[in-house]
């Protein structure tokens, strides 16, 4: 019997978002569609919002083995979009290595527009197989702030990088121009292959070297310029590894009497936190993008660190609104 309902145009897990700028410089959604298991929620807009906030959710709070999510987003000129999640994106166990759970995101950002993607970390459970691909095409003057992070799994249950496979791809492309085709600016691809069943050594765990969280932050475009400069500046003033304090005790006492500026005080606290949480990070300029890589012993350590820097610098809040930071505080 044929179905009396019109056939659905979208496949399972497909989603579509279009954000455009309304008069009075308010960004608003003009299209929002999604199919199970993907779910998108956007709070009702207010006249003062700095960007459209969208929650990227899944039914049941996670992706079951073999689920596919494919979200396509267009951000029209000068509009701004923030994407957050509610809690970790859980990736459940797959029955075998061939059953791959996939999440794909394709985002086109037009001139003067901005996208801020600061979700919670992905939490791959033991035995899961996950592939994530996030591809951004930016026109001239478009801005992107992208955080992609993954945790060691359910550490409270003793999981420690026990998934079968995890791969995360982030690509930034310069949109094609009249005389040239699209050009790849940056490809950040992390491939983690779990241990084969029956192998005695914990190879992947050793590869991760005691980290419980690994993350990548990618910044590009005019809206994120000051944050990018802030990261580079903070990286360059990190204390040197293996440096010794050659000052005399007298000088140390004298220096400790100096009143630190607010920023120096903040930096000192942050460095202490980096030390306590075993946080390692590095920042690099790659073809016009800033890439920050960081690893921490615990998820909360990483979250506190990245949240503290974004808050201290302040430009994400200025351009995208306070809510865009809800997953990193």
């Amino acid at each position, binding site marked *: 019997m044929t179905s009396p309902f019109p056939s659905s145009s979208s496949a399972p897990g497909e989603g579509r978002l279009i954000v455009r700028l309304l008069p009075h410089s308010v960004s608003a959604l003009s299209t929002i569609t999604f199919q199970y298991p993907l779910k998108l929620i956007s709070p009702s807009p207010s006249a003062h919002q700095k960007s459209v906030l969208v929650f990227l959710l899944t039914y049941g709070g996670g992706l079951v083995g073999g689920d596919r999510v494919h979200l396509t987003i267009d951000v029209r000129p000068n509009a701004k979009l923030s994407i957050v999640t509610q809690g970790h994106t859980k990736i459940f166990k797959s029955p075998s290595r061939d059953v791959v759970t996939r999440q794909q995101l394709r985002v086109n950002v037009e001139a003067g527009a901005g996208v801020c993607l600061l979700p919670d970390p992905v939490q791959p459970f033991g035995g899961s197989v996950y592939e994530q691909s996030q591809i951004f095409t930016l026109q001239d003057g478009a801005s992107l702030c992208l955080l992609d992070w993954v945790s060691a799994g359910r550490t409270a249950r003793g999981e420690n990088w026990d998934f079968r496979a995890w791969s995360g791809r982030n690509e930034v492309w310069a949109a094609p121009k009249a005389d040239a085709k699209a050009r790849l600016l940056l490809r950040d*691809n992390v491939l983690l292959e779990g241990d084969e069943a029956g192998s005695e050594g914990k190879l992947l765990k050793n590869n991760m070297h005691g980290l419980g969280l690994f993350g990548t932050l990618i910044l590009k475009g005019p809206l994120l310029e000051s944050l990018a400069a802030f990261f580079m500046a903070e990286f360059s003033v990190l204390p040197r590894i293996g440096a010794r304090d050659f000052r005399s005790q007298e000088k140390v006492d004298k220096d400790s009497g100096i009143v630190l500026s607010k920023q120096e005080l903040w930096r000192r606290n942050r460095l202490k936190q980096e030390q306590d949480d075993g946080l390692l990070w590095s920042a690099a300029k790659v073809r016009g993008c800033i890439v920050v890589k960081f690893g921490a012993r615990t998820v909360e350590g990483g979250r506190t660190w990245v949240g503290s820097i974004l808050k201290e610098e302040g430009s994400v809040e200025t351009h995208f609104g306070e809510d865009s930071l809800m997953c990193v505080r």
Partner: protein
Amino acid sequence: MNHKVDSSESQILEDEIVELERKLQDAKSRLKARSNGTAISAPPAKVLQSNGPLAPSSHHFLLLLADSALPLGSFAFSSGLESYLAHTRPASSFPAFMKLSLSSIASTTLPFVLAAHRNPAYLIELDDTLDAAMMCTVGRRASVAQGRALLSIWDRSLSSASPPGVSLADIQVLKEFTILLRSASPTVSSDLPTASAHLGPLFGAIAHILDMSLGQTAYVFMLSHVKALLSAAVRASIFGPYHAQKVLASVEVQEGIQEVIKREWDTKIDDAGQSVPVMDLWVGRHEMLYSRIFNS
């Protein structure tokens, strides 16, 4: 991709045929020598001779590219070893680091070496894609410094001695690449370089022109990396030269190289990526060391 797999498989078969023909020739000449009652051993000057097309010079160039005296400046780079030692002291272990480093170099760079050997015509594109995939300043600097050195070696030393029968189109690709690299003025700090000269793709392309097989190229590339790590370890006083030679000769190194080559043999360049994320942190944080003896 299928086409590429086919060509690499037929390459392997061709290599095997050349090898078998050489053995046959060798056995025949020994038999002949025996019946003539002359000396059995081959004349010393012909040690590297064989009857495959272009084979004598390919052996010659294989030895040149595998030589630690090849002036690439590899001794100036530790590929993160120095930073690793500083971050993990006193629990650092060279064998553990070497394993991670092999896996990381193979997953990030080896697909580009293989792709450039399979088709040198794509050199400019491969170089640009690899440039987009290198996520840390220190690693980029090391790769570009050695790549530029290799290009100079080709330009000034090897190109005049390239084997007969070499494809002119492939040589033209290198010429164009050099021109492109020079035209991009290094003083103007452009965000998007037209050409960077990373080591991996250039090594693959030059090895192809010098008629080395795909398998040889991959092995020499990985072995050179191990040699650079060991040379750095000796100079960082982890162990002495005898122990370094022992590690280099070990079955673990041989098997480790074979294993990663097998793993990456069919990896497309678009799927190349970092298999040891913490390596990016160590290499990237090399600049944070208080004292350094290496450039990476």
